[in-house]
């Protein structure tokens, strides 16, 4: 079903930045907008057959980066156009609430019709384990089943790159294991996978490489062991230790503050400005 290949670069990101436009309440004009949070100067190479974990706390910019990769934001810095990326990438957003009085089969066919090439919907339904639910109404699906349907949508068109935003949320442990097995099998066949989470533990057994995001910036990337080694951390260190080590924040001073809209370059390693 999927073509296998060597570790070639599927997508290259160079100095990718994107700022959300948010309502400017300081202006009298109701239509006035200003730059909000986003991602700043991200450099990344995504290689075939690898599973890359995007790790970062809430508001780090994981979803924004994933949307940018998938061509939902028209930003510069990619080696491929938005149209090409949308053809080659399968995207699974976080927690899609599939609803309505239409069947799983119909919903998947509607999405499949948005692609040029014919799609074997039955096979996709079988791949994600929804065969017994194919004729059920979307309203009657559990959250886990909805996640599977989102995965089926992402697999339409045999993508070279799968981008998945916190896909393990809402899945039971058995489904999580099945999900991980499926992703590993796809990676073996040469599909690159980008998967996000705010927990290192969630991805530890699954990913080949991680990329640590914080306040819209990519702090460090590489294999989990290499990242921990570079940051001088122990094997069981989590996301907080990584961020604190990479940014120089004292773990005792960690606050609930999210990424600021007035984003400034603050890339640092071990507390030292790069």
């Amino acid at each position, binding site marked *: 079903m999927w073509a296998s290949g060597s570790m070639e670069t599927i997508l290259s990101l160079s100095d990718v930045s994107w700022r959300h436009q948010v309502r400017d309440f300081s202006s009298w004009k109701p239509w006035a907008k200003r730059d909000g949070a986003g991602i700043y100067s991200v450099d990344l190479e995504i290689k075939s057959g690898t599973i890359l974990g995007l790790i970062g706390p809430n508001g780090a910019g994981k979803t924004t980066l994933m949307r940018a990769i998938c061509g*939902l934001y028209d930003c510069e810095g990619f080696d491929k156009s938005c149209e090409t990326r949308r053809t080659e990438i399968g995207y699974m957003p976080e927690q899609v609430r599939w609803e309505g009085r239409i069947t799983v089969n119909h919903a998947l066919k509607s999405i499949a019709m948005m*692609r040029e090439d014919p799609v074997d919907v039955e096979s996709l339904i079988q791949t994600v384990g929804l065969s017994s639910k194919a004729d059920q109404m979307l309203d009657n699906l559990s959250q886990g089943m909805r996640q599977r349907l989102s995965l089926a949508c992402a697999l339409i068109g045999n993508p070279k790159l799968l981008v998945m935003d916190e896909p393990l949320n809402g899945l039971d442990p058995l489904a999580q294991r099945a999900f991980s097995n499926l992703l590993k099998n796809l990676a073996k066949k040469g599909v690159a996978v980008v998967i996000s989470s705010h927990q290192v533990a969630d991805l530890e057994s699954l990913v080949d490489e991680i990329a640590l995001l914080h306040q819209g910036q990519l702090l460090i990337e590489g294999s989990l062991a290499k990242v921990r080694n570079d940051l001088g951390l122990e094997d069981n260190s989590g996301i907080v230790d990584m961020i604190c080590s990479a940014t120089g924040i004292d773990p005792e001073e960690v606050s609930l503050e999210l990424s600021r809209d007035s984003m400034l370059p603050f890339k640092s390693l071990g507390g030292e400005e790069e």
Partner: protein
Amino acid sequence: MNAISLGVQIMKERLTAGRMMVIWPLLAMFILFSSWGLSDPKVTLPASIVIDSAYDVMFVSTAFIIFSATLGAVLISFDGVSRDRLSGVLEVKLSQPINRSVFAKSLLFGHWSAIFLPVMVLNLVSLFVIWYRLDDLPSIEELFIHTLGTALLLLWYTSIQLLASSWAKDMGSSIAVGLGVWMIFTLLWLVLTTVVAGLSGVGVDDLNSAEYVKIDAIMDLFSPNGVYHHLLEMPLDDVDRGMSPLYTSIAAILWSIIPIHLFTRRIERLKP
């Protein structure tokens, strides 16, 4: 992949939606009952309206089509974009390699046909009702204008509603904008016309005066319902509000182009 085939999928989704349980009886009551009542040979109408042909019945019953079919268009389309946006499904759709303008056209076609199809089925049934009651049928030309006018009216409302739905970021504002627009054009336009006539120095005590009828005809060009009536008045010899068919055609074209263009542009720039 094209706008029509994707639109047919959307139409099927909309036709099987729960809200059709409300829309079908609403349309049936207004369209069929008005045809039945107005084709009664003994019917007496206000404002010295005389009904002596099948097209006269169809023309007068458009008042009921305006009320029910446009409300149906609003109920079908008000969440055409906002629902998918809120549920996250729009993100899945926009990440597909479909041209955004083709996607916008498929949304328009799907939502428009989901209301046009039931209205046309009921219009066909009402033709039999009129034939049974009056033993008369409209000419092909009259039927064509009536169908075209109804199709355009529903297209205008659908495109306006979808545009509003693409702006709204929650279901509440989506419903408010949808029903608000419908109420302005369907219920409040007469008030607005009267205000404009008053400000223009035209007496509003006699709504049949030549000056008021002229103002009313001009104001109708700025409302989808008004342009619909102008279109349907074209085959009627005994109705003349002094509006050139050229102006009516220009208004119909502008009402078709502007909302569709704005909606297409909106979808092209939409961020999930």
